[in-house]
């Protein structure tokens, strides 16, 4: 359960069978159960079956589910999806988190952004709204940019007015989007460099679905990162995997 979205992954026989997401709400238990049943149906399984584990900020609101913290879920999910991962970078709705892993998959350290939403999904959503771009298209919207605009401030409120100013100056939208993606990447790469990991870096979280941010991260980092097929599902997959023992 993330700050913005509740993600569900159905895992069985060592595979991810189905995934889905709903907006996180004050009363998440009902919608989560409904979605779980839809996913079970897709996999040809009876509703209400299986076992459920919950992770994330609202995990305690899911009755009957076993609980694990986000960190544990991400570690398990990353190990399941890409065993060679040594650093998980979770680009979530309200937070950026880095989890460092030992070669056996246990956590050795983690860092988070502080109480500031810059560089998170919320930040990009607000910028998308200011630009009149569909948030889901923020990654592709920057593809044709000739030169990314420079966004000077990282504060959400001020960055928004900077964006509005750039629009008023007739700067092409794709260049502004590219500038925003660069800014987010720069902040994330600074955190990655501080962690100093040499091994594989796995990106997770909804913002990792933004191809522009991912490309900018790889450019700034000077190497490739690992992008799972559904980066927003890493935590959910990890929660599901935790029910099945050590693998």
């Amino acid at each position: 359960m993330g700050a913005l979205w509740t993600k569900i992954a159905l895992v069985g026989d060592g595979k991810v069978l189905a995934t889905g997401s709903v907006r996180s709400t004050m009363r998440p238990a009902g919608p989560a159960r409904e979605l779980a049943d839809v996913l079970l149906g897709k996999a040809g399984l009876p509703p209400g079956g299986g076992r459920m584990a919950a992770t994330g900020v609202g995990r305690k609101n899911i009755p009957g589910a076993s609980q694990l913290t986000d960190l544990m879920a991400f570690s398990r999910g990353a190990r399941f999806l890409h065993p060679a991962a040594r650093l998980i970078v979770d680009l979530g709705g309200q937070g950026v988190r880095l989890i460092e892993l030992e070669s056996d998959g246990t956590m050795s350290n983690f860092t988070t952004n502080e109480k500031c939403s810059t560089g998170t999904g919320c930040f990009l959503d607000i910028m998308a709204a200011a630009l009149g771009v569909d948030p889901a298209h923020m990654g592709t919207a920057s593809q044709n940019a000739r030169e990314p605009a420079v966004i000077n401030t990282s504060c959400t409120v001020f960055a928004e007015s900077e964006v509005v100013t750039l629009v008023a100056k007739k700067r092409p939208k794709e260049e502004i989007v590219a500038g925003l993606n660069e800014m987010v990447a720069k902040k994330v790469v600074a955190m990655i460099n501080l962690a100093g990991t040499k091994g594989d870096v796995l990106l997770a979280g909804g913002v990792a679905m933004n191809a522009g941010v991912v490309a900018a991260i790889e450019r700034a980092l000077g190497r490739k990162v690992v992008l799972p097929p559904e980066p927003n599902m890493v935590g959910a997959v990890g929660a599901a995997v935790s029910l099945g023992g050590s693998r």
Partner: protein
Amino acid sequence: MTGSGKGGRVLRYMNAEMLESARAARGRIQEAAREQVQGHLAAMRANDRPRAMAYFDGMADPFGKRAEELGRFRASGGRVVGTLCYFAPAEIFAAFGAVPVRFCSGLYEAVHPANDLLGDAGLCPLVKSTLGLKMSGASPVLELCDLVVVPTPCDAKLKLGEILQDTVEVHLMNLPAVKGTEEGRASWMNEIKGLVRRLEGLYGVRLMPRMLRKAIATYQRAQAAWRRFSALRRKGGIWGRDALLVAQVSFHDDIARWTENVNRLCDELEGRPPVAPEAARIMLGGSPVIWPNWKVPLLIEESGGIIIADELCSGSRTMYDPVVVGEWTMEGMLVAVAERYLVPCTCPSFSPNLDREENMLRRMREFGAEGAVFHVLRGCHLNSLDATKANVVLRRERLPMLKVESEYDEGDLEQVRTRIEAFIEMIRARREQSG
């Protein structure tokens, strides 16, 4: 625009309406403080703790028993001096027969009156709360003070000392940023002498060596008791949240009585088993944690950790270092007092501040701490920067550190909890892996 404040003081920055509205908040601030204090004490008592903590619980209400006692003391001609920092030297006040009371505030509700003046400018909440406390008149003890002594370790306290002069007599002490040089020590020594002159003028008394000797001896006993207590914390017989309360009762208590009660607590701790042998052993550092802003200590200890050691100016540092007198002359004693407050202190206002990282490392090893939580009050840039430095140094030694930023409200409680829970879980995973 100026107006007239209490006791004929000129209002330079505040105005009468602002103060009136602050004073109207007095009851609300007191009520909220009591609620917070009682809530925390109930949570703290629910666990296994030494019987000798009862004394410190009794002193925990900032508007309770001790406030009444000081009220009577003042009414019978006693002297009370307010201080706003670790650096205000208690021995000097005590030498004049004055009781020093440290007013760094941990009250959430007191932030609001200060916001009327300062706006919501991302300033340290401790400083805003302290200013709001004075503006509202909510602390009966602060209202008794003849003088408030404000050292200037950071921008926020520097300006607090300035603005507070609308409502109370203030003595600023210019703290050097570079303490390792001859010049730095000499300038601080001058500040100590300046404070002595100020108090001599205020009370019409000349400071005599025997007065200072007696005060130093009284505090040396307190410092010895605290060091004994600090060493005993290693065995884990007491929760960190209780240890911090013990330290902070010294902010306003009768120091001889406090010493006696700390020693009583130590006697009990000698034979006590650990309160939470399985808990993750945490070193708490960073911005001052001031009662009843117990958010971070309670979250750590509710999430499977125990604060086994701290490096807070509101905790271990309060009483840890003794005044070491070489020569019992007036000059010798003043030098000893000056050095005691300057040299061992690892406040982030100093540069370079290698002592801080090294002390953290040394104490973490000594106390078997498995990780450090570095608490930063929102707006405290100095601690935020020291957190970055500490993180780099601790990481090199493979000791995990979590930096948590917090404010004076309950709004960030769950966000901070999530981070602390995850941090402690990681420490446990590391432990399983290595053991």
